[in-house]
């Protein structure tokens, strides 16, 4: 009985958090929209693995589609149709990821888009949203997560990815444009980058160093914003300037947990098409299904979308932080790990 009560208490709190998120955006004039979870086309991102779906109609005609990995494309299509500030709370699906821990194949995602804005304004939205939730739930501006106190008061510390590499590992990220240089540094640091590790690309080197040496040094007692990611790390984000190696993307870490990924949206359809084609090439190289480019998405960009910036935030992770829950399986009433392994 005690266990059932605990699960019920958690679900009550989760509902309260969802209500608060809706309040937050509605008070700021955002329109809540609902876009499809089952779509014909999907993001081509090489390292995100969608669920492919087949279904048929009353005449037995079969169709092929996907479960969304995020509502991003649909929301941008709405921006192209003239929608203003919008947000959506929906389900998204990704496979080839862990069951349990910080991942569940089906998860709840919040995305919002602010028009005539860049990522700095979305940073502000994010900080204010988290502050608003913590304040409403606890009447103060800190929370306790797994025995550690996390201060969420404003403003949050902000550090650029370039600064982080310089500060924590003394690497000039500009120079890593040269892949061989990056490889040499990683080798000198003792990382195994030979065939035993399956070969490495730029992103692998980035993460090896980031996860082993930078992330552990990021402050755990604060919510922080890491911003301006190098281009290989920012497929849908706008470059800082025409020739820059960095794009306007940021991530949010609260108590060391990554909860959100945001950027100034790329609105140049030619550049977008070029990057999607590069994704396809990489997918092929990785022996993954080559996903068709969503033509209506490119069409939408072509017809013009306003300058906009958006954020994708994992609601389950945010709820875990707010409710001091370590494993997503304790948050969800029916975790996939339990359902599919029993």
């Amino acid at each position, binding site marked *: 009985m005690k266990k059932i009560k605990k699960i019920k208490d958690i679900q009550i709190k989760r509902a309260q958090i969802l209500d608060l998120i809706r309040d937050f955006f509605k008070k700021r004039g955002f329109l809540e929209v609902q876009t499809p979870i089952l779509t014909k086309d999907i993001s081509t991102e090489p390292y995100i693995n969608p669920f492919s779906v087949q279904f048929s109609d009353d005449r037995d005609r079969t169709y092929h589609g996907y479960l969304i990995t995020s509502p991003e494309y649909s929301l941008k299509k709405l921006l192209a149709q003239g929608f203003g500030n919008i947000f959506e709370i929906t389900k998204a699906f990704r496979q080839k990821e862990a069951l349990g821990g910080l991942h569940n194949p089906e998860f709840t995602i919040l995305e919002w888009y602010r028009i005539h804005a860049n990522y700095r304004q979305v940073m502000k939205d994010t900080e204010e949203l988290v502050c608003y939730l913590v304040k409403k739930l606890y009447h103060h501006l800190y929370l306790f997560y797994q025995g550690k106190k996390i201060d969420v008061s404003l403003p949050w510390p902000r550090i650029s990815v370039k600064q982080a590499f310089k500060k924590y590992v003394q690497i000039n990220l500009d120079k890593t444009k040269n892949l061989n240089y990056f490889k040499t540094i990683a080798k000198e640091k003792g990382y195994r980058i030979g065939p035993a*590790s399956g070969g490495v690309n730029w992103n692998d080197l980035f993460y090896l160093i980031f*996860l082993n040496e930078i992330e552990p040094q990021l402050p755990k007692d604060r919510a922080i914003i890491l911003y301006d990611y190098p281009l290989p790390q920012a497929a849908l984000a706008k470059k800082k300037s025409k020739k820059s190696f960095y794009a306007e993307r940021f991530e949010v870490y609260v108590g060391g947990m990554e909860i959100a990924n945001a950027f100034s949206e790329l609105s140049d359809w030619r550049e977008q098409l070029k990057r999607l084609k590069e994704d396809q090439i990489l997918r092929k190289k990785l022996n993954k299904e080559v996903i068709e480019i969503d033509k209506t998405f490119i069409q939408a960009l072509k017809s013009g979308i306003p300058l906009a910036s958006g954020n994708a935030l994992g609601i389950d992770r945010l709820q875990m932080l707010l409710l001091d829950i370590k494993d997503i399986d304790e948050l969800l009433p029916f975790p996939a790990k339990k359902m599919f392994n029993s």
Partner: protein
Amino acid sequence: MVSTSDFEKNMVIKMDNEPWQIIDFQFVHPGKGSAFVRTTLKNLKTNKVLEKSFKSGERFEEIEFEYKKALYLYKDRKNTVFSLKENNQRVSLPLENVENEIAYLKEQIVIDLIYIGGELSGLNIPKKVALKVIEAPPAIKGDTVTGSTKTVTLETGLKVNAPIFIKEGETILVNTETGEYAGRT
């Protein structure tokens, strides 16, 4: 060879020619690159614990190991001496191999010795051990501030900070990872 997808808790892998036991692991999927496995490892020779993230798919040599229950007998100037439970055979580990554990080893305690490839290579100290307090300064009257501590000496000679209410002759628990007081028995 084992790949990161074969990782299991307690498995021992070879890294830089040392045996490392997997204490915990979690897959991370940054979404903008391959998956990684955040792993907590313990060096079975030195008991040093560290966190490392490996690219998913990386391969390692697996090391076969076994635990053998043994009774801790005594230490001399060079070695710690144990008696194996299975056959009462006496075995010893050099002091420098148990530098960090010696402060928690009480004579006649039963622990797990670690054998790698048939050779004794270290010992597995429990996360918490119970030790008797042999010296504790009396609590100062009027010192009622909650959370105040004092230094007590335990039967192995180890000194820890304990709450002021702990008395001589009591047995307390000590966390062997942090060396800190972990409660009364």
